[in-house]
């Protein structure tokens, strides 16, 4: 190994573990991007070893409900005590410790913001099941990100609050043997108490964050905290150059949206003359910035050169838009009298119903007399939501104005879906492949952004487009929603599944893909965007059991009316 131990990913990860262990709540959290494996286990073991022995470290399960997350009624204790007894939820149990979140990329938006609120306030507020309480919940998160796809990333709300972002996927087994930074908790704590604050350090971290294109203000705040922790780890009572460099590398660099402009100091606005000793500061600035630049994720430059953004860690990404706070089989909206064999028993409501009658029924203390009429079951509301998947032919044969019309229709529909609280997804196919430009979302903001970036031109990989739509539709169905696929094309495929050009093979593949889509029973609508109705498009529509709609003069409003008819027909 040619690189010194201090420069390896694993050493950085070990350093992050020590910093986090010193002040979990202050760091907010660690985003640990790693597949399950020895590296991840070793890191977690290391963290465990660095934390004091009795530190709570509960694991959060993916589908956790509010009762277990925030807190709820402790029924046995309540019945014993004769008054409501609170059972603290996982966040309150983790007070002073660390919450491990496996598969953090799968958290629903609702769960993520509940955790985020606890991080912000250091406590959980419980207003459930007749209980009202505020419990301390100062804890840090370890967000285990196992996302495979670019659109699977940790909820932006949580990632933004986590200071340290690590990527362990490049760590090799031999690396794990290297010595890691140690933590002398007592000494570090003592240093933290008297830590002097360097005004200039604040300015420099802010400047670097801005140079790296980081919008969120939490990043420099967290970087400052990490710089202090790093100083304390080294036994210093003042933040030094090294500490800023470490903070920049661990906190700011992984969030970078772009590389700093090469002669970075030129970027600083003229107002910076308020900063003392600007000239001397610049040289130092360069060193810290260089540390940040050195820690930038590998491949960022290549992606930037290729004209793409960074991986889905941008603040706009995350599953937030795609997640739903609602469980699959309807959500409880109170309770009603009923037979528990035909619904889930609502225990608290049942007790509530029985409670007032206990005297009258002559119950002895410590016993509760139940009658069948007391029994309450959960009232669930299940509204099957529709997700409209637009598969848009953005190839050269679909003329450019067609694309503009399709964009307009999607936006119009989105505005309607938003009123109905339905969702929209957008797939575009051109050249050799299909891209999911917009995962299912209700957000107008995200949709507009995705649409604005939709390019046109190239071949027509119709089969790829249909396959992508079918796969997405299947996922939507699994999520308990009803997919409707709207295909906008002229039906003239000329790129086959293998990506090879050639009309005949491409058309055959497209028909096969269409039949596969129909086999799942997906409701579909094909809008023929050619200037004259095409036989190929009609055949395709028949194969995918779709309504066929020639729309030579398609305009956005007309299109949206047609889709509305289709989605309304499903009921």
């Amino acid at each position, binding site marked *: 190994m040619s690189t010194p131990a201090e420069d390896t990913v694993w050493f950085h990860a070990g350093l992050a573990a020590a910093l986090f262990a010193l002040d979990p709540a202050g760091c907010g959290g660690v985003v640990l991007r790693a597949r399950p494996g020895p590296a991840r286990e070793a890191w977690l073991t290391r963290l465990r070893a660095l934390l004091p022995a009795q530190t709570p470290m509960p694991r959060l399960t993916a589908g956790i409900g*509010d009762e277990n*997350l*925030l807190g709820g009624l402790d029924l046995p204790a*309540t*019945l014993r005590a004769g*008054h409501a007894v*609170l059972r603290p939820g996982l966040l309150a149990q983790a007070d002073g410790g660390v919450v491990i979140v496996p598969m953090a990329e799968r958290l629903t*938006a*609702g769960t993520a*913001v509940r955790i985020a609120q606890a991080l*912000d306030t*250091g*406590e959980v507020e*419980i*207003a*459930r*099941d*007749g*209980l*009202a*309480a*505020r419990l*301390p919940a100062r804890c840090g998160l370890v967000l285990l990100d196992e996302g495979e796809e670019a659109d699977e990333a940790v909820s*932006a709300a949580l990632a*933004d609050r986590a200071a340290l972002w690590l990527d362990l996927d490049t760590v090799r087994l031999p690396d794990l043997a290297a010595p890691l930074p140690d933590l002398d908790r007592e000494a570090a704590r003592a240093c933290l108490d008297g830590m002097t*604050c360097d*005004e200039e350090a*604040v*300015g420099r971290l802010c400047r670097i*964050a*801005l140079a790296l294109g980081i*919008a*969120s*203000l*939490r990043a*420099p*705040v967290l970087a*400052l905290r990490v710089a202090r922790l790093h100083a304390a780890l080294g036994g210093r009572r003042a933040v030094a150059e090294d500490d800023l460099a470490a903070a920049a590398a661990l906190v700011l660099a992984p969030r970078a949206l772009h590389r700093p402009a090469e002669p970075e100091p030129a970027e600083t606005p003229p*107002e910076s003359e*308020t900063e003392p000793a600007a000239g001397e500061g610049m040289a130092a600035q360069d060193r810290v910035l260089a540390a940040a630049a050195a820690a930038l994720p590998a491949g960022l430059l290549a992606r930037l050169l290729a004209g793409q953004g960074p991986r889905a860690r941008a*603040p*706009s990404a995350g599953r937030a838009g795609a997640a739903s706070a609602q469980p699959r089989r309807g959500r409880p*909206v*109170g309770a009603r009298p009923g037979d528990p064999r035909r619904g889930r028993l609502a225990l*608290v409501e049942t*007790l*509530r*119903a029985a*409670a*007032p009658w206990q*005297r*009258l029924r002559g119950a002895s203390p410590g016993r*509760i007399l139940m009658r069948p009429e007391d029994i309450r079951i959960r009232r669930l509301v299940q509204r099957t939501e529709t997700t409209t998947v637009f598969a848009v032919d953005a190839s050269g044969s679909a003329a450019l104005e067609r694309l503009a019309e399709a964009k307009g229709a999607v*936006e119009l529909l989105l505005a309607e879906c*938003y009123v109905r*609280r339905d969702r929209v997804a957008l797939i575009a196919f051109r050249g050799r492949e299909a891209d999911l430009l917009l995962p299912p979302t209700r*957000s*107008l*903001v995200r949709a507009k952004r995705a649409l*604005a970036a939709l390019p046109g031109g190239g071949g027509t990989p119709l089969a790829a487009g249909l396959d992508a739509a079918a796969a997405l539709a299947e996922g939507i169905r699994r999520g308990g929603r009803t997919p409707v696929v709207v295909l906008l094309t002229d039906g003239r495929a000329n790129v086959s599944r293998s990506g090879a050009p050639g009309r005949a093979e491409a058309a055959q593949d497209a028909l096969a893909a269409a039949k596969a889509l129909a086999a799942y029973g997906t409701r579909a609508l094909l809008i023929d965007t050619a200037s004259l109705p095409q036989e190929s498009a009609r055949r395709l529509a028949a194969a995918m059991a779709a309504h066929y709609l020639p729309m030579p003069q398609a305009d956005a409003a007309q299109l949206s009316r047609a889709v509305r008819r289709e989605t309304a027909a499903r009921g």
Partner: protein
Amino acid sequence: MALTQSALSRRALKPDPLPAIRAPATGTYPFAAIVGQDEMRRALLIAAIDPSVGGVLVFGDRGTGKSTAVRALAALLPPMRAVAGCPYACDPAETAGLCATCQARLPHGLPVQAVPVPVVDLPLGATEDRVVGALDIGRALAAGEKAFEPGLLARANRGFLYIDEVNLLEDHLVDLLLDVAASGVNTVEREGLSVRHPARFVLVGSGNPEEGELRPQLLDRFGLAVEVTTPTDLPTRIEIVRRRDAYERDAAGFGAAWAGEERALRETILAARDRLGGVVVPDAALEAAARLCLALGTDGLRGELTLMRAARALASLEGQRRVTTDHLRGVAPAALRHRLRRNPLDEAGSGARVARALDEVFG
């Protein structure tokens, strides 16, 4: 088994039986120390001066201090006079709006005390029974009594109800809120209870639009809607981080350093409230407001009304006794941007559309 008045008042006087209720450990960031975000601060102050403006929605980027500002406002508000021991903090000066218990006690005279203006958090995981109030299960189990335990809406009466991440609030809770926010009365009909109590509050919501849109019906309930974005200029950013850091390291010292400014701001609010009734709205301003709403095609009269009230509160805040077009200009984006018909094909944001209309109408 009807709910007795005595049960209610006893309940109110009884200390809460639940454990571990404590004040936030960290104290509150002073409102006066918030850097930038002028529109958000102004909207919150307007709501504090004239609650009839109808609530504030703060939508925008992550980490811009949305909830910090709302919580800071709570600490800033001057105390109010309320009937001692009333769970709804009834206003002794306004006998028409009293709750049933206070009505009954009225002939004997109502004890009065100064209480802080309630700023009640509606947490996302809240259940219906705690929001609207329900049978007091503890009392029911222990004593077999049927007593009403007031919920969050009762506590928020005459104050603020704050919902962070309001766009993620469950639909059935939104429905409840819509009804109560419109009528100012909370009606509870459950578990054999039948209770009506006043629940007038200023709704304050915050959220991030990337996590989902807000239901239009709820959007409409907010008088003012402000959009916050992360500041991009370096000096402002440095100042924000510097103050945040100073506060985190020594909340008490930071609070003390800003206590003077906080007091001055509190007095400004009080003075503005006193002045509010005397602020004149000239016909020209009324007409200008109407023309603006017409140009923007806002639905209903609510837009005009909110615009007028907000402009009046702003004039009062600025120490003036007459509403001018400048005041209208100052509040029009917040009062109207969420009332525009959605036009998805218009790339410009709704704020820009209001600005455009302002230029057309006011020249």
